């Protein structure tokens, strides 16, 4: 009888021990599994999801680009004005050519047809100086203002210094403003840049992507970095449009595609401002 009791006691003790060991093992697996994230990129994605940031499909393919420079020079406006149709009223101010059409050009009411007509208007050298170099930018345009960006030998620009705004009123092209970069040349060799995905990650890392927002589009192009010694330096950049889910406000941010740093507001054209 005594032996049986001892057996019972042992059984209970061992059940206790096993329960204890079981708990120990149950707790350790979290420590045991090797770090789940094999890449910080994956972490950023989940973090962004948790912050309720919606992203479009983004390419993670690296691109390439140059540091480009152009001498500050407004010679082009003289050539432009001699080439344009004689019935255009032109003025030049702030490196911007303002053109108003004394005889406005009629365009279709249908949006598709209208765009095609505006494009062919732009392509005619009598209408727009070097118009063939300008490419339509959907993201920046609306029904009254059709925006085109200049294409350089090294790729598209994304800059107020190389842009065409076609103003349309009552189905008529009434005027336009044009900026143009001439003699753009590389100052250094071709280099790899961030991918669209890399630019978004950089934006998020620098806390420039607010919670509860949606990335509408990303665009790769040359933007002004700094003015130095009579030249303007342009760098490849990612321009990113972000919509706030609550207020529906859209904000535009730019990332230096070489360094991943945020390009500060470009409107303030002081010579020595801190740049990315």
């Amino acid at each position, binding site marked *: 009888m005594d032996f049986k009791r001892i057996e019972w006691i042992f059984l209970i003790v061992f059940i206790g021990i096993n329960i204890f060991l079981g708990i120990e093992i149950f707790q350790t697996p979290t420590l045991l599994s090797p770090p789940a994230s094999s890449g910080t990129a994956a972490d950023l994605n989940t973090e962004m999801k948790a912050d309720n940031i919606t992203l479009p499909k983004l390419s993670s393919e690296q691109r390439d680009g*140059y540091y480009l420079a152009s001498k500050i020079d407004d010679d082009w406006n003289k050539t432009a004005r001699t080439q344009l149709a004689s019935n255009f009223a032109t003025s030049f101010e702030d490196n911007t050519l303002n053109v108003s059409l004394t005889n406005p050009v009629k365009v279709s009411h249908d949006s598709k047809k209208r765009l095609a007509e505006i494009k062919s208007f732009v392509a005619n050298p009598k209408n727009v100086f070097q118009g063939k170099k300008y490419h339509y930018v959907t993201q920046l345009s609306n029904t009254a203002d059709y925006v085109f960006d200049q294409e350089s030998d090294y790729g598209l620009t994304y800059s107020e210094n190389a842009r065409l705004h076609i103003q349309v009123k009552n189905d008529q092209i009434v005027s336009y403003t044009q900026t143009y970069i001439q003699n753009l040349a590389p100052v250094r060799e071709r280099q790899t840049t961030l991918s669209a995905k890399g630019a978004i990650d950089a934006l998020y890392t620098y806390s420039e992507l607010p919670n509860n927002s949606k990335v509408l589009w990303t665009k790769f192009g040359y933007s002004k970095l700094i003015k130095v010694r009579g030249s303007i330096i342009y760098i490849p950049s990612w321009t990113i449009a972000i919509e706030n889910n609550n207020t529906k406000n859209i904000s535009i941010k730019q990332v230096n595609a070489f360094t991943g740093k945020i390009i500060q507001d470009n409107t303030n054209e002081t010579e020595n401002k801190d740049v990315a």
Partner: protein
Amino acid sequence: MKFNEHTKRIILRVSLIFMVLLSVVLTGIIFGTDAHFSGVEQTASKTTDKQIGEKSLRDIFVPTQLFYYRNDQLYQVYDGNKNLPLEFNRLTEKLDKRNIKTVSQDSKNYKKMLHNQNYLQLTYPDQITMPLFITGLKKSDSREFNRIFVSTKNKTNLYLGNDANQKLYRIKIDDINLNKFVHQVKHASSKIPVSLIHLADGYSVVYEKPTKMQVYNYLTNEESSSYYVNNLLGSGAASQKTTGDSTVYSNGAYQRLIVTNKTHHYEFVDYQENKIPKLMTTRLTDSLYYVRKTGLSEPDLRFFDADDRTFIYQNFVEEYPIFLPGNNTARAQVDFAKNGMSINFNSLDFQIPVPTDDSKVTVESTTEALNELYAAGYHKKTINRIIIGYEIAKETEQTESRDLVELRPAYYAKINGKWRSLKEWLNLSANKKSKYMKEDTNGL
């Protein structure tokens, strides 16, 4: 009743035996996993965590110079618009696991290959290991190379050569089309006639005649010391002590960052990182991991030089490294040692290239430069390498935070493991010089 009693006993005994066995098994698992756990922890801090960022290894470990033969003359070829080494890097990006065949270990064959006019050559600043060029290879593959031979005719094979031991390797590349690349090289915008000379570390480029070279201008930038303190010591309060020109930040007894205020020079030491990685590939990638940890800006940063435990990364302007003034000429240098790992780096960032008024300067021939070294008493056997690099020539104050610097070409030589400009080598005091005249026995 009796039968029931008997069954109960059997059940009791069986469950007791089962419980004893189960406890043995569970204890075994816990002991086993404990060992496993500590292993995981180690690898986690050693390798798994060492993220290298979006820029791939191949953007840092990149060939920097390109050569090809035309009418019996070797030319150094350059085309900034296309950046041919970058183009080659892209084309060979998909090179994965493949058989690397050793085709020769003979110096005569190697010489023949160097002078084979049917091959163009791409060179790395120093030897790298195979896994850094071909993905999917085992890290333990420690075969090294620094020269790639691309055939201009039969394009199914690529030869990799190691100047140091004169070994030649061959890999099949029938899935990569290099026709366009070869065409671009032949039509590149700039060609400088050169030849090769064998020095202690392998072949150096010889500019046989005085050569005109570009002057470059840069706007420089500098991150504050708090940026580096934060990156290396964390955001926790690091203790700080200033003596004279330098400030020492430390995080406990194991990590220390010394900032020399005037020279932009930083030295970071981590005494906890006291294990020298065994594999060369790991040392190369780990050194880059530490350099990236500092937060130095990277667009022009390239792998430059590796000795057994010392790894140097430099900023490059086009095909040439930029040397910084003073004693620490490297942008970043990682040293692995048994008593801790250290990084010496410089916060001066050549940030924005600025157009130059197309000025060029003439650099003397390499033969002349070498003769000056010989005349000063340096022996050919002690000269590891001689190259053209860029140095800061002029500094014009623009603003408080940003200077405009001019970079001019100059000869730099590595003698007995130490990099200095030709000028500095020639002006070294006799006492110091003698140290570098004898062959080094430490195997540098």
